[in-house]
C-alpha cells in the first residue's frame, strides 16, 4: 500500500513535468517506474528532447555494427561453395526482409495505441514508420532481384516470399497514400492506422494463399537457403547486420517522429520557442 502511495505522488509530479516545458529533465524521472517514464515521454516536448539526445548514439551504434557486419560478411566470410560470392547479398537482403516485417508490426502496434488511446505521439510514430518500412521493403525487392538474376537466371519469379514481399510493399504504399490524402492529418493518421491493422490481419492470409497458389502451379518454387544450415562464419555477420538495421530503424524513427511532431504541433508555444531559440 505504501508503495502504491509513493508511486501516486511520483506520478503526480511526472504529470506536472510533462506539461511544463522547463522540466528538470528525464534524468530525475529515470529513478521512477517505467510506466511513469513512458507517460512522461508521451508529451511531445519531452519526447522531442529525449529523441534528439538518444538518436546520435543509436545511429553511431548502428554504423559501428554495420562496419563490423560488412567486414565480416564481405571480407572474412568464405565464398559459398554453390553460389560463389553472389551470396554476399544476403547480408543486406535478409536483414532488410526482417526489418520490413518488424517495422510493419511496429506500425500496427503504434496504430492500435493511436486508435484506442488517441495518443498523438503514437499517431506520429505509426505514420512515420511507413516510409522506413517501405524503404526496407524496396531494398528487399531490389536486392532479391539482383540476387535472383545470377542464381536463377531471372529478375523476378512469382515465388511465395517474393509475392508476399510485393504485397507488403503495396500495403505500405496504401498506408502512406491514405495518410497523405487527408487534409486533417490527425484524422488521416487514425484512418491509416486502421488500414495498417486491417493489413496485419491480411498479411498471413496473403502468405498462405500464395504458398497454396505456388503448390498449384509447380515450377517457380525456389528455396533461397536450400535445406542446408548456414555456416557460423556466415551467420554472425548476418546477425550483426540485423542488429545494425534494427538500431538504424530506431534512430530513423526517432528523427522522423521529431519532425512529424514539429509540424503537427507547429502552433504550440514550445515549438515557437524552439524555433526562435535555434535561430539566434
Amino acid at each position, binding site marked *: 500500500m505504501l508503495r502504491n502511495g509513493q508511486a501516486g505522488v511520483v506520478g503526480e509530479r511526472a504529470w506536472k513535468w510533462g506539461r511544463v516545458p522547463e522540466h528538470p529533465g528525464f534524468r530525475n524521472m529515470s529513478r521512477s517506474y517505467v510506466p511513469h517514464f513512458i507517460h512522461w515521454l508521451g508529451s511531445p516536448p519531452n519526447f522531442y528532447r529525449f529523441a534528439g539526445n538518444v538518436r546520435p548514439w543509436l545511429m553511431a551504434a548502428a554504423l559501428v555494427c554495420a562496419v563490423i557486419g560488412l567486414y565480416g560478411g*564481405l*571480407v572474412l566470410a568464405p*565464398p559459398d561453395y554453390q553460389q*560463389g*560470392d*553472389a551470396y*554476399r*547479398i544476403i547480408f*543486406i*537482403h535478409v536483414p*532488410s526482409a526482417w526489418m520490413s516485417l518488424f517495422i510493419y508490426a511496429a506500425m500496427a502496434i503504434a496504430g492500435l495505441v493511436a486508435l484506442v488511446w488517441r495518443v498523438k505521439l503514437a499517431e506520429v510514430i505509426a505514420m*512515420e514508420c511507413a*516510409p*522506413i518500412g517501405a*524503404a526496407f521493403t*524496396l*531494398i528487399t525487392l*531490389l*536486392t532479391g532481384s*539482383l*540476387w535472383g*538474376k*545470377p542464381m536463377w537466371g531471372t529478375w523476378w519469379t512469382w515465388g511465395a516470399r517474393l509475392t508476399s514481399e510485393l504485397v507488403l510493399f503495396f500495403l505500405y504504399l496504401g498506408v502512406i497514400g491514405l495518410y497523405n490524402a487527408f487534409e486533417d492529418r490527425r484524422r488521416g493518421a487514425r484512418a491509416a492506422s486502421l488500414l495498417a491493422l486491417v493489413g496485419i490481419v491480411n498479411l498471413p492470409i496473403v502468405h498462405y494463399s500464395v504458398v497454396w497458389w505456388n503448390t498449384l502451379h509447380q515450377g517457380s518454387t525456389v528455396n533461397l537457403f536450400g535445406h542446408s544450415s548456414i555456416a557460423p562464419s556466415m551467420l554472425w555477420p548476418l546477425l550483426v547486420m540485423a542488429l545494425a538495421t534494427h538500431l*538504424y530503424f530506431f534512430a*530513423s524513427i526517432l*528523427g*522522423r517522429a*521529431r*519532425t512529424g511532431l*514539429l*509540424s503537427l504541433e*507547429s502552433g504550440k508555444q514550445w*515549438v*515557437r520557442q524552439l*524555433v*526562435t531559440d*535555434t*535561430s539566434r
Partner: protein
Amino acid sequence: MTQFFAMGGYAVYVWPAYAVFFIVLAWDWFAPALRRRRLTRQLRGRIARERTRSARAARAEVTT
C-alpha cells in the same frame, strides 16, 4: 584488392545491391532532415510576420 572488388565474377550484382541499400537508406535518413529545415524556415517566417503585424497594430493604436 581487385579480387575483392571482382566478387568472384558477381561484382555486377553484388555492388549494385549494396548501392541500393545505402542509397535508399541515405534518402530515408536525409529526407526528414530536409523536411525539418523547410518547416523551421516556414515557422520562423510566420512568427516574424505575426510580430510585425502586432507591432504595426500597436503603432496604429498609439497614433489614433
